């Protein structure tokens, strides 16, 4: 059998779907079980429930993965794990009625896929310093400050928080939103100057 650690997640999913050999799934389990457990810790606040969550999520994936049309295993696993958490929380009578919160999470979930698409575009031509500068200037002040410190200064969330008036959570939020906006602006910019 080929070297499993060398295969991408999606290759492992494809091989598992084709052959049904558990070893392929085992590699995915090794890569991600601890992350699903961490998601459980975040939402369920209970180690035992999080352990059960890992078991249940991977058990279902083991059965469903061969039929599922999975484009990004990481995104698929996250969506499924979080949905399971929500179902368990609902059982605990904890209501999550704030759709804005869920919507925000869902948008956030798409970013990883968008990165790859964006990079392909970025690789089609040389980078344009002007576009980058213009794009950064178009960000809001909060996002611009955080992006510059993070990207150019390679500062951590905490260091940025210490250097600014923002909390660490705000820094992370500004960076997430700034990066998302920057991706859109750069994509538009690269397209504009490509013609």
């Amino acid at each position, binding site marked *: 059998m080929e070297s499993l650690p060398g295969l991408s997640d999606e290759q492992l999913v494809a091989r598992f779907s084709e052959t049904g050999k558990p070893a392929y799934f085992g590699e995915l389990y090794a890569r991600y079980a601890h992350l699903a457990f*961490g998601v*459980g810790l975040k939402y369920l606040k209970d180690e035992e429930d999080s352990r059960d969550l890992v078991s249940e999520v991977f058990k279902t994936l083991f059965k469903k993965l061969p039929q599922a049309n999975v484009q990004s295993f990481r*995104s698929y696993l996250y969506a499924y794990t979080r949905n399971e958490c929500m179902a368990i929380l609902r059982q605990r009578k904890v209501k999550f009625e704030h759709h804005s919160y869920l919507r925000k999470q869902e948008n956030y979930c798409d970013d990883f896929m968008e990165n790859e698409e*964006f*990079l392909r575009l970025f690789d089609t031509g040389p980078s*344009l310093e002007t576009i980058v500068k213009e794009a950064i200037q178009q960000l809001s002040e909060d996002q611009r400050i955080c992006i510059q410190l*993070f990207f150019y200064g390679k500062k951590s969330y905490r260091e940025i928080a210490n250097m600014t008036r923002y909390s660490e959570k705000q820094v992370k939020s500004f960076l997430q939103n700034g990066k998302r906006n920057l991706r859109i602006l750069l994509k538009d910019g690269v397209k504009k100057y490509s013609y």
Partner: protein
Amino acid sequence: MKPKLISMEHPGHERFKEFFQPSRSLSEEEIRQYVEEAAEEAFRIENLLLDSPLDSDAVEGYASANYDFDKKKPFDDFDTFLQKIRAGQGSKKLRLNRRKTIWNRMAAVAAVALVALVSILILRPSAPTDADLFAQNYEFYSSGFPTFRGAAARLSESLDPQLSQAMEAYEEKDFEKSAANFDLVLKSKPSNLPALFYDGLSNLETVATDKAIVLFEQVKNLGQRYSEEASWYLILSYLKKGDEKQAQTLLEDYLKSGYHFNHGKALKLQKKLKSIAKE
């Protein structure tokens, strides 16, 4: 005119590529190092956390749980997992079913108790007072705002900080604090619907019934989100105030409007109010 191109070797290009480069997920050891602030590659990790909610939530989960990474892994290794799959076991289902059974029993006991309580209330000779009717019909309206740290903090990022503080206080049933915070939000945003509605509820809880009435009327008149709920709590506010007549008038309107919120309760309340009026 095309802007001047920078070369592929330009450090900015590579840095930007790094910034947007998809990265593999974190290993348990990397999470440990990051959580314990010993990570050498903080930039790579934090950059990944911006894009991967799976890793971000997991790190947040381990950090908030003060997880002890030295102890044995709490979840099965893959071989054990596979054995369980082959044996057709599912620990969670078993556990949840067991819990469900316990809950079912408790629910049955609660249902019997509830029926007994309702019977006593219905059969007792004296007519209920407005205060009784209020108590029978009033229920805390949960906003669903998560009170645990991680989710509340994340939600707060998308909300007005004052509003999220108020929501958090409300959900923690600190109604004086929530009312004060909602008032502050309304100073700058007088038509903020959630603030108006939850301020009404907070005031109803803190016995500032007149103020609650004004707020619920505002929400009701805006005719948007929360208007059904506000109409219901407006009825209850008048009951609490002892203005049974106004409560009854509003209740008739409420039922004619075809509102669904607490419809069953509204019908029962209507019957009771009518029987009291006859007496």
